[in-house]
C-alpha cells in the first residue's frame, strides 16, 4: 500500500481560494479523515488527489512518485462517491467487475474477485440485482467493493454515508473501518460529521478556509484543540472569554468571579484568554439564596438527548452548556438557580491577545 504526500496544494476557482496551501503526509496503511464544514476545501482536496481536478499549484505524491499530472484513469486510486454512483445498466456483480474488465482480466478472475468482494461487504446474495433493486446502504457497499476490486494504491471516500439514515450510517462506517484494517489500505475519508471522523480514523485533519487547522489523533483533536475553530467545530465546547487573574495559583476572572484553571499558570497577568470547557465536564448544583462565591447562573433550557440531558445555563455574559447524566438532572429545571463548576485541569486555554473573539464561519462549497 502506498503513502501519500500533499505539498503546498493550492486550488483557486476565480477569486475563490478553495485550497490555500495544504501540506500533509499520510503513511502507508493509515486512515485519515478530512473534517470540516461545507466550503472548507475537503472535497476539493480529495478531487485533486483522485485526479478529477488539477491544482493551481502544488504537488501530489503517491509512493514518492509525482502524480499531479496523471489522468484519473491511470492513478490506480479507488473512490467511493457521495452520490450513488453504481452504473444503473449493470448488476451489482458486473459493477464490481467493471474495473477488472477495463484491465482486461479474464472472466474467471473477474467473477471470482467480484464475488469475494461482495462477500466481504456482506452482499454476495445480492450479486445479480440491479442498483435500483438495492437500498442506499447496499448501493454504497457495492460501490466500496467496486472501488476495492482494482486493488487500488489508495482508497478515497467522499462523504459516502451522508445520504443514509443514522443507523445504517453507524453500521456501515464500522464496516468500512473493519475492511480498511483488514486490507491495510491507505484511506482518505472526507466528512463533515465529527462523530464519524473521530470514530473511524487513525488521524483527523480539520480543515477551514482551505487550510489544515489541526491534524492529530481523534483524542488529540477532541481533547486538545489547537485553535478556537477546532474547539468549536469538533464536539460542543463552551468558549468563555476571561482574563488571567492569578498566574501563580492558576485563576482567571470571569464575571467578577475567580475560576481555577490550571492551564493559565505561568501566563502573563491580565492576558485575555479563551477558556475551552467541554459540556460533560461542567458540574451543576442547585443553590438556594445567594452564595458568597462561585459562579451562579439560571437554567434557560433543557433538552433530552438520550444518554444525557443538555442544559443551557446563563451565567455572566455567556450561555454555558452542560451535559448531565440521568442521575444529575435534579437541578436541571428551567428557571432554577445553579452553581457551575468544572475541574481546573479540564479547561484548555487559547490566547485572545491581539485578536477578536473568533467566530465559526460556514461558507458554501465553491463550484468545481
Amino acid at each position: 500500500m502506498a503513502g501519500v504526500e500533499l505539498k503546498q496544494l493550492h486550488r483557486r476557482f476565480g477569486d475563490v481560494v478553495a485550497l490555500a496551501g495544504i501540506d500533509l503526509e499520510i503513511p502507508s496503511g493509515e486512515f485519515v479523515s478530512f473534517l470540516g464544514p461545507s466550503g472548507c476545501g475537503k472535497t476539493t482536496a480529495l478531487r485533486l488527489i483522485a485526479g478529477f481536478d488539477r491544482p493551481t499549484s502544488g504537488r501530489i505524491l503517491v509512493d514518492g512518485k509525482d502524480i499531479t499530472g496523471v489522468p484519473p484513469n491511470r492513478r490506480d486510486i479507488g473512490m467511493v462517491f457521495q452520490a450513488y454512483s453504481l452504473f444503473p445498466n449493470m448488476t451489482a456483480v458486473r459493477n464490481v467487475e467493471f474495473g477488472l474488465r477495463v484491465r482486461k482480466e479474464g472472466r474467471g478472475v473477474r467473477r471470482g474477485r467480484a464475488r469475494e468482494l461482495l462477500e466481504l461487504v456482506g452482499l454476495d446474495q445480492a450479486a445479480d440485482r440491479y442498483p435500483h433493486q438495492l437500498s442506499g446502504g447496499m448501493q454504497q457497499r457495492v460501490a466500496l467493493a467496486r472501488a476495492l476490486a482494482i486493488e487500488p494504491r489508495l482508497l478515497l471516500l467522499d462523504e459516502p454515508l451522508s445520504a443514509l439514515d443514522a443507523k445504517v450510517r453507524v453500521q456501515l462506517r464500522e464496516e468500512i473501518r473493519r475492511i480498511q484494517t483488514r486490507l491495510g489500505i491507505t484511506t482518505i475519508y472526507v466528512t463533515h460529521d465529527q462523530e464519524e471522523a473521530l470514530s473511524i480514523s487513525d488521524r483527523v485533519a480539520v480543515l477551514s478556509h482551505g487550510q489544515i487547522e489541526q491534524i492529530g489523533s481523534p483524542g488529540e483533536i477532541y481533547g486538545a484543540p489547537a485553535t478556537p475553530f477546532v474547539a468549536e467545530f469538533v464536539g460542543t465546547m463552551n468558549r468563555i472569554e476571561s482574563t488571567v487573574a492569578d498566574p501563580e495559583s492558576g485563576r482567571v476572572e470571569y464575571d467578577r468571579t475567580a475560576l481555577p484553571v490550571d492551564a493559565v499558570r505561568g501566563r502573563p497577568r491580565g492576558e485575555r484568554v479563551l477558556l475551552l470547557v467541554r459540556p460533560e465536564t461542567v458540574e451543576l448544583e442547585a443553590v438556594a439564596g445567594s452564595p458568597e462565591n462561585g459562579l451562579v447562573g439560571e437554567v434557560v433550557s433543557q433538552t433530552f438527548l438520550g444518554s444525557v440531558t443538555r442544559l443551557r445555563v446563563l451565567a455572566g455574559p455567556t450561555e454555558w452548556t452542560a451535559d448531565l447524566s440521568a442521575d444529575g438532572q435534579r437541578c436541571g429545571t428551567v428557571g432554577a438557580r445553579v452553581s457551575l463548576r468544572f475541574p481546573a485541569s479540564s479547561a484548555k486555554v487559547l490566547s485572545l491577545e491581539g485578536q477578536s473573539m473568533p467566530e465559526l464561519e460556514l461558507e458554501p462549497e465553491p463550484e468545481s
Partner: protein
Amino acid sequence: MTPRRFISPTAVLWLLIGAAYFLVPLIATFLFSLKNDQTAKCCTLANYSGVFDDPEFWKTIRLSFVIALETIAFTLALLVPTVYWVHLKLPRLRPVIGFLALVPFVVAPIILVVGLLDLYRGTPTWFYAEPYGFLAATYVILAFPYMYFSLDTGFRAIDVHTLTEASQSLGAGWLTTLFRVILPNIKAAALGGSFLTLAIVMGEFTIASLAQFKTFPVHIQYVSQNKAYQAAALTLVAFGITWAAMLALLAVGRGRGAPTTQGAR
C-alpha cells in the same frame, strides 16, 4: 387485499374519443383502399396487390429506409458525444444549443432546401447528386431538434458527472466510459430520438421532391395523382411498415433486457 381498481366512465369516454380521433381516419382510408378501381365499389384487395407488384414501391421504400438509418447513425454519432460533453464540461452552452436546435423548426423546409442546394453546389457528385449524400445531410438538420431534445432529457435523467468519474477512477478512458457506461444509460432517449428521425425521414416530401429524388413519400404522391384507391392502400402499407421498423428498432435497442431506470435515491 389489494383494492379493486375502477376506471371512471368519464375516463373511458375520453379514451374512446381519443382513440376515435386516430382510428376513424385510418378506418376510412382502409375502407377507401378496398374499393374497385373501375367500379368504385367495395370490396377488393387488388389495390394492395397493385402496391406490392409495383417495383417502384420496393425501390423507393428501400431508399427512404436506408436514408433514415443513415440519418439516425450520423445524428447519433454527432450528437451523443456533443450532448455528453456539454453536460459534463460546458453546461452553460446548453441554452445556446437548445436555441440552435429550434432553428430547423423556424426555417421552412422549402427555404432550407433552396439554401442547401445552393450551399452544396460544387460539392462532389457522389454527395450532391445522390440521395444518400445530399438528402441524408439535409435530414440530419431536420432531425437535429428531435434527437437533441431526446438526448438532452436522457442525459438530465442520469448523474453524468458521478458516472463518468466513477468509471474513470476504475481505469476507464473516455471511449470506454462513453460506450460502456453512458450510452447504455441513455439508450431509451437515443431510441426515442431515433424513432422520431425514422418517422420524419419516411414521411418527408418537400425536400426530396424539390431536390428531385424519388423517395417513398414522393412515390406515394405520384401514385395518388393517378390511382386514388391504390394510393390509400399504399398509405396504409407505409404506415404499417414505419411502425414495424420502429418496433424492430425497439427490439434491437432493448434486446439485452437491462433496465435503464435510475437507482433508488
